[in-house]
């Protein structure tokens, strides 16, 4: 299978390289405004813009065409003016989208996502309608607009340089966005985090908001040809959302999102070349021999997101599970130390069997206890002698801290809450794991340094390290 993988990649050409470069540039250009949309909880606005700017594109197309037919512009300058008109149309419609959605929300008293939904579908439908109406005069392929044609976009090169036009457009957009983010980093951060403070400081959050909106609309148009407007939303939102899971500082989030965007482009194209022939031919569909890069990029982005959701060091689901598991192990180990200490106070040290098969433990706790005993022996906290488990000097001071926490807490609760003695134990059993020397000291001094707990058991002195 690995060999097969390499055979499909063996006819990698400069054409493939340009596809990857163009895709990476457009994805990275999208990721920059995307970071701020995600943080402002305006991800839906990105989706909406990606659809409504279609109307702007068609209007730009028709407008420049009308100028040509009317003889206002020379045929030689037509392509440049057409491109400019498309960008301008998209930006204007982008701004109109935001203003309309805000107006619908205010006047119609709808919630903001409903307001966006209304504006979104209306303007998008108008765009599609115009394409149909104008189909006789202009050439816009609705399929291409919706799904993007990375593979054909790179064929349109500039002069003899061999550099695809779309690579230059997207690269330029990445540069512009990068400069905007660098220049207005602090203003973007503040207006995203706390627009009220930005307002009171006179830092114009409304202007910053508009700049972000314009940059997003322009980026979407630039990325249109290569990624298509359905999938551009994946590039706008998914890498930043993944980066959000992986970082807790804004600069790192931005860098992560750029890296992930590039990663999606590279592996999106590689998988587009290899996965369908390898996978689908085995499933009995040999006719599926290639997938579109844009679609594969979105899939890779989705996989990255779920990977981050599971494995992110701080926010990942598995990381949290692992943390809780470690916490549980510590609790069990501390409970075992406490139990050994208590039985040493009165009787003989307990046997391993007695510790593990304590009738109050459930089976899961018994397994954990066995594991904790092994671990503590390795760490030199306990030793085993003729079946009995004894505390070492190190183990004794840890156990003293636990038992001390437990009995101090019982005394504290007994003083302040009128509880029967039997009710004190359960909470103390839980709280003992969370007290540190400073808190124990505070408890002890508030209780006027008691010698024993409510049941008359001696409270150990604070162990010296």
């Amino acid at each position, binding site marked *: 299978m690995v060999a097969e993988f390499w055979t499909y990649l063996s006819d990698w050409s400069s054409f493939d390289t340009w596809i990857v470069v163009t895709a990476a540039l457009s994805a990275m250009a999208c990721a920059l405004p995307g970071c701020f949309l995600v943080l402002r909880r305006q991800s839906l606005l990105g989706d909406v813009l990606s659809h409504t700017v279609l109307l702007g594109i068609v209007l730009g197309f028709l407008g420049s065409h009308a100028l040509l037919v009317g003889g206002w512009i020379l045929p030689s300058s037509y392509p440049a003016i057409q491109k400019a008109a498309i960008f301008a149309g998209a930006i204007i419609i982008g701004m109109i989208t935001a203003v309309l959605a805000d107006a619908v929300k205010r006047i119609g008293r709808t919630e903001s996502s409903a307001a966006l939904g209304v504006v979104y579908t209306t303007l998008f439908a108008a765009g599609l309608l115009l394409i149909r109406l104008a189909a006789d005069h202009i050439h816009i392929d609705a399929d291409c607009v919706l799904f993007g044609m990375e593979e054909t976009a790179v064929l349109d090169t500039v002069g003899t340089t061999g550099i695809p036009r779309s690579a230059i457009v997207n690269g330029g957009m990445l540069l512009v966005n990068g400069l905007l983010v660098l220049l207005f980093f*602090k203003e973007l951060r503040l207006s995203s*985090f*706390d627009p*009220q*403070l930005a307002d009171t*400081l006179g830092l114009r959050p409304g202007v910053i908001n508009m700049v972000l909106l314009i940059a997003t609309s322009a980026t979407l148009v630039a990325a249109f040809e290569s990624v298509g407007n359905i999938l551009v939303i994946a590039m706008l939102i998914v890498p930043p959302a993944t980066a959000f899971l992986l970082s807790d*500082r804004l600069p790192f989030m931005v860098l992560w999102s750029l890296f992930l965007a590039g990663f999606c482009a590279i592996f999106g194209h590689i998988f587009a070349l290899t996965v369908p022939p390898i996978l689908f031919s085995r499933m009995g569909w040999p006719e599926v021999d290639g997938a579109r890069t844009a679609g594969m990029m979105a899939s890779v982005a989705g996989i990255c997101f779920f990977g981050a959701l599971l494995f992110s060091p701080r926010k990942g689901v598995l990381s949290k599970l692992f943390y809780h598991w470690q916490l549980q192990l510590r609790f069990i180990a501390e409970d075992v130390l406490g139990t050994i200490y208590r039985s040493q106070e009165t009787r003989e040290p307990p046997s391993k069997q007695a510790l593990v098969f304590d009738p109050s433990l459930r089976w899961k706790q018994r397994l954990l206890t066995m594991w904790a005993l092994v671990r503590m022996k390795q760490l030199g906290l306990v030793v085993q002698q003729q079946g009995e488990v004894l505390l070492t000097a190190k183990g004794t001071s840890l156990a003293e801290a636990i038992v001390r926490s437990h009995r101090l807490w019982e005394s504290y609760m007994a003083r302040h809450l009128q509880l029967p003695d039997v009710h004190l134990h359960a909470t103390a059993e839980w709280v003992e794991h969370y007290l540190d020397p400073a808190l124990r000291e505070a408890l002890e001094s508030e209780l006027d340094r008691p010698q024993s707990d409510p049941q008359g058991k001696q409270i150990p002195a604070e162990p010296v390290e």
Partner: protein
Amino acid sequence: MSTDAATSRTPPEHPVTSPLTIDDMTVAYDRKPVLWNVDYDAPVGKLVAIVGPNGAGKSTLIRAVLDLVPRVSGVVQFFGQPYRQQRNRVAYVPQRGSVDWDFPVSALDVVAMGLYRQIGWCRPVTKKFKELAMQALDRLGMAAFARRQISQLSGGQQQRVFLARALVQEADLYLMDEPFTGVDAATERAIVDLLRELQTQGKTALVVHHDLQTVTEYFDDVLLLNLHLIAAGPTEDVFTVENLRKTYGGKLALLDQVGQRIAVPETR
């Protein structure tokens, strides 16, 4: 306040030195008036509690003077000038719930935000400003938490970050929206100490406050509010049982009714 409606009253004369002068301010949300005809002059160098029941317009008062909520009528001046010209001298501490605490910034980053106006457009936050922010955090006993992402702070610590952010602005007037809500005993202590310190520096603070028990202990002045200004002045004169009864004894029935009518006019 006179209870005789027939007595004619001259409009209040506002001292030019007052940190905050409100002249006949009315504020409405979606047409419905929530604050009626407020006339107020904040005293210099005093700690002022803004007290009133839920929905009395306490937060609205602060937000309206800062132009965060549009005013229907009225003139607001800070140190004798409009807010736009006095931004440097006013610091605002919003309610803790007004921002997203999952935002990827550290406590230090948030405090430095108070300096963004001073730093200026398009310039980075340099070491000098980070040190200023650090000093402000230190004054609130938060230096050890400077590098923490803000969601990993307790509610009280988050409130202290907000206060440090206001402190770093070196303002002369502080407007604080419920800084004491949901904080631990240590934070309450820290806030009170900070307020006292500001006062000894001749600064003024207007604080929306909920705990009637501590008003006389913490504040020199009080502003009682319930849709309109009930009374304002030194705590010992104004914070009386009679005035509190007026403030908390229910809204003025007709004031409320007219407000409703303006919000939802009857169709003819």
